[in-house]
């Protein structure tokens, strides 16, 4: 496994969360969280409802600012950066409740996510010269390529919110990939899916990770999905990390069983 090799070689992790706390008044949604994700690793983050998984997600993506602690991505601190700046550094995400751009087509949803890599300024957009046309063409080609990889190309002119649920999830992943991330955060991608769709999703996540050589952090409720694909799993409960390890270790961890099933 690439990640193990890296760890042994002493390479620094891609994402490193050190002693992060998020407090809303007196409530600590996440407290003293330590988490590290290595290049090319598929990591799972699980926990019962209200354990702070989504807060941890919002922490990484810059929606919340840690009350205390440090987050480093690719060797640099990302604390206090706005979400769009963090995306520019190479962290992309999907949403628990699908947030596609409703008035844009499938194609434009993906194209819109390419925006931040475009160089042309307002004068190019107004003059509409050759440089502008070339860059637009390059983007269109890239979008089509991405859509083809994920078998959404035949739907490219369809309105995004008219797609079947599974395809919308897939489109969200494609859209996130269009920002050229190094780390992909998936927030409950299996929510609301039937078993067949879940199997399809597991295959899709594996495929994506290998094809684009990404690190993936997966927040998920569905144990079968998490256990099936994650190399390492961290468990949150009441904002604290209670366990971390391989799926096998987590399955047999007493604290985890307690948190999920009660004593």
């Amino acid at each position, binding site marked *: 496994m690439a990640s193990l090799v890296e760890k042994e070689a002493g390479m620094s992790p891609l994402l490193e969360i050190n002693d992060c706390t998020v407090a809303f008044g007196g409530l600590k949604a996440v407290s003293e969280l330590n988490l590290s994700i290595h290049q090319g690793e598929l990591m799972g983050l699980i926990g019962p409802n209200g354990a702070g998984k989504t807060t941890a997600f919002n922490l990484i*993506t810059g*929606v919340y600012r840690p009350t205390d602690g440090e987050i480093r991505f690719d060797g640099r601190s990302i604390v206090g950066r*706005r*979400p*769009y700046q963090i*995306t*520019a550094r190479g962290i*992309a*995400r999907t*949403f628990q409740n699908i*947030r*596609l*751009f*409703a*008035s*844009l087509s499938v194609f*434009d949803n993906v*194209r*819109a*996510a390419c*925006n*931040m890599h*475009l160089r*042309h300024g*307002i004068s*190019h*957009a*107004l*003059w*509409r010269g050759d440089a*502008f*046309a070339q860059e*637009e063409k390059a983007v269109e080609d890239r979008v089509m390529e991405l859509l083809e990889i994920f078998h959404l190309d035949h739907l490219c002119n369809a309105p995004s919110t008219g797609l079947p649920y599974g395809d919308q999830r897939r489109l969200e992943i494609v*859209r*996130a990939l*269009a*920002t050229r991330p190094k780390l992909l955060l998936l927030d409950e991608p299996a929510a609301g899916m039937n078993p067949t769709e879940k199997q399809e999703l597991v295959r899709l996540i594996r495929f994506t990770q290998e094809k684009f050589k990404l690190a993936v952090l997966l927040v998920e409720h569905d144990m079968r999905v998490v256990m099936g694909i994650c190399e390492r799993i961290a468990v949150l409960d009441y904002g604290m990390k209670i366990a971390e390890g391989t799926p096998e270790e987590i399955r047999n961890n007493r604290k985890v069983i307690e948190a999920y099933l009660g004593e």
Partner: protein
Amino acid sequence: MNRPKTWLLVFVALIWAASWFQGAINPYYFDILITIGINIVLGVSLNLVNGYTGQFSLGHAGFMAVGAYVSAAMTIFLCPRWLAACGGGSTAESALFLGALVAGGFGAALAGLAVGVPSLRLKGDYLAIVTLGFGEIIRVMVQNTEAVGGSRGLSIPARETGLFTTYLAAALAVYVVVSLVHSTYGRGFLMVRDDEVAAEAMGINTTKYKVMAFVVGAFFAGIAGGLYAHFKQFIHPEGFGFLRSVDIVVIVILGGMGNTPGVILAAILLTILPEGLRALAALEALPVWLRGMIQNRMILYSLLLIGLMLTRPQGLFSGGGKWLRWWKRRQA
């Protein structure tokens, strides 16, 4: 040369040709024609903010006022001196007028920047209230500035606005808005409108896009204000009040949020409508109460808006595709 620019040039050439005959047009129709042009500039520019970017602004008349007063102050206080310095001539006069218009636009854009940066953190109703407040502040400020006539209003000596300048501004406003919308910026505007959280997560600096839409919108509102001032030759702070902003919002809503052709049509329709109603109200055959009601444009506007929201919330001219398909089916 590509298509949008060709269209722009063809249109500009056409209005330039047409403007040679503007003296032959009946003054009443000429007035309506110019008002339509100004309303197109206002509607299309507000549509960039309210329609495409989804930021509900009620302060467009405020920006119009800034543009009107800045350009009027230029032509009254500065231009005569500059004109004397360069020896005069009608070409120099026209150039200075264009300069004054652009200065008015930039003044309004600056005001847009000053209002936009702090207030665009707000959403929906709150932003509407702040922009409404801004419009009122501008009005009261002008009212208390003696240098530009205060509450007495300001007279502009020469009628500089003509067919060419008005429709040049309209064409430019449409060109700029359409070009922006069909580029990365347009995608950014629509992303901000659809879902700000997701837009940020896709690497979009939402503040930048919102401020940009606001500033471009304000710039053209300023230009429209300058055109208005140099057409009516008299501006008054009361003329740029809340009701003027509402007039422009009605154009945008009637035309359809984020539908530029629709907004142009609505600007034309809503400029002609009061004139048509005036003619209707003059008909002796109608009962007096009905004639009184017809004369009050605001009552009709309100009814129109209520009816529109109930039956066509997407705007009168949006979703034209359906009718087009129906027409094609009939033809086939």
